[in-house]
């Protein structure tokens, strides 16, 4: 009798143990399910953007769509080359200006400034990163655009305004990542260079920047992605005429602006062409992402 009870209890204990294990396994799978939501979202986004966007490309013709220099929806002409060129010019310009300013500021923060000044710079740069893009656009519209108009004429809405606003917007990305990578250069490199008689400035430019190359490159590619994807700030300062930009002060329209600007009233093939513009933008961003992954992987390999 007694033996039976203990056996029963043992069984119950076993059952409980098994139950617990099953429960733990279920919980683990629930967490896995949560983790899979991101994958599902990416799949959905890619699926929707491409299925809704690509029909227009085939209807218009890939060549006409990508290399057509005229965008006139009312006449049924859809060429997005001006927007592709506009986006590329804007991004390259912003990256050149932004990297110059950003890298020097990062050098200042990592190597030159006294610690108390870093305590002012760092929150300032974080704040710069937190300011909503529409405020940058608003500032550009009311300050940068009139200044350009004053000096160069032509209304001021221009490629130059886009480049200036974008380069301000990407500064925080460039500065914070470059600063971190400059700070993580091994001390021995710097000391070795100084011991060999190089000056501090020479050490920074000849030793530290080459050593921090992969971090700086990462910041540049990330910043390029941000610049290319920016919409609202660009719309407010670009002028948005779908024409090939011929100079710094000509009006431009970027890919992002093309999508956002006409979406509210477009229909039929016109709307599909806007979706297709989204596809082209998405491909550009994916290319930048792949480059980014490549840089990070290469940097990881060189550390190993």
């Amino acid at each position, binding site marked *: 009798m007694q033996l039976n009870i203990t056996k029963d209890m043992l069984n119950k204990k076993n059952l409980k143990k098994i139950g617990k294990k099953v429960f733990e396994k279920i919980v683990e799978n629930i967490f896995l399910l949560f983790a899979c939501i991101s994958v599902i979202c990416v799949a959905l*986004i890619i699926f929707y953007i491409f299925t809704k966007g690509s029909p227009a490309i085939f209807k218009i013709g890939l060549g006409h769509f990508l290399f057509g220099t005229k965008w006139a929806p009312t006449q049924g002409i859809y060429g997005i080359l001006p927007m592709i060129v506009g986006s590329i010019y804007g991004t390259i310009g912003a990256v050149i200006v932004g990297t110059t300013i950003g890298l020097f500021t990062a050098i200042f923060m990592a190597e030159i400034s006294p610690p108390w000044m870093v305590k002012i710079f760092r929150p300032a740069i*974080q704040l710069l990163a937190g300011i909503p893009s529409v405020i940058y656009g608003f500032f550009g519209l009311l300050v940068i655009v009139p200044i350009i108009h004053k000096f160069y004429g032509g209304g001021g809405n221009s490629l130059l305004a886009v480049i200036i606003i974008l380069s301000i917007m990407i500064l925080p990305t460039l500065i914070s990542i470059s600063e971190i990578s400059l700070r993580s250069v091994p001390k021995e490199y710097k000391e070795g260079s100084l011991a060999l008689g190089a000056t501090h400035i020479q050490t920074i430019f000849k030793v530290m920047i080459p050593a921090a190359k992969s971090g700086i490159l990462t910041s540049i590619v990330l910043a390029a992605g941000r610049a290319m994807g920016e919409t609202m700030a660009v719309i407010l300062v670009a002028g948005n005429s779908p024409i090939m930009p011929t100079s710094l002060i000509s009006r431009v329209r970027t890919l992002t602006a093309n999508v956002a600007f006409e979406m509210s009233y477009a229909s039929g093939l016109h709307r599909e062409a806007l979706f297709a513009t989204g596809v082209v933008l998405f491909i550009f961003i994916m290319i930048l992402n792949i480059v980014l992954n490549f840089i990070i992987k290469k940097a990881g390999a060189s550390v190993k």
Partner: protein
Amino acid sequence: MSTRIKDRLLYIIICAISFITLGILVWIMAYIITKGLPYISWEFLTTDYRGDREGILPSIVTTLYLIIISLSISTPIGIGTAIYLVEYSKPGKTIDVIRFAIVTLAGIPSIIYGLFGYMFFVIALNYGNSFLAGGMTISIMVLPTIIRTTEEALKAVPKSFREGSLALGATKLTTIIKIVLPSAIPGILAAIILSIGRIVGETAVLIFTLGTATGFPTSIMDSARTLSVHLYMLAKEGLSFEQAFATATVLLIITAFINFISSKIALNIKRFAMGSKN
């Protein structure tokens, strides 16, 4: 001698450019706040936007609603994902795919999210321009931020905490809920505040999904405009720059406040992490 001059020159250039960076921030802040502050009044903050009333109360309410809706969707998913990545996952194909997805989500520009939200939630699921469509789209957009920041916070919890708990006979789930998560709360809070910052500043997504209606929102299927969208519409219409400046000032103050809080939390995390090492 020439090296010395070159050094001196570069040194001056570096300093000058750094102060230009700082100057840009001061310029933007000062310009908007000095122009906007005079127009901010109690009436501006507490009336609606209709007829001759130019208040921003509906936009403030909309922004708050949107934050609550988006975060109540994305926070559980984000934390769950981070727990899986840190506590359960083993190296392999699954984890590679999940990581790739998170990196991709983080790199997608907001206009693409807007386009997707419009095609999927607004049109395909027939939600229309509504809080539901806007909230869903935004919660996907902030997911990478929440996952990454929570992940960092979970990783910062010392291993000894987990081992101690497991050694006392607690199950893995109990350990996570009672030991790991409470220690990671500051980090999770930082994730939430970072996301709030992104939601407050977002425009491109919301114009397509939440729309631009000016009234007070009454249900989850209503269209409305957040502060950022309101500012964009004001700037684009160009009718009243006074209102635009005032709205921009309110936005800037909110942004600065969010930044202040998140840096305070980050400081606490640092102290916690350093304390636990000793």
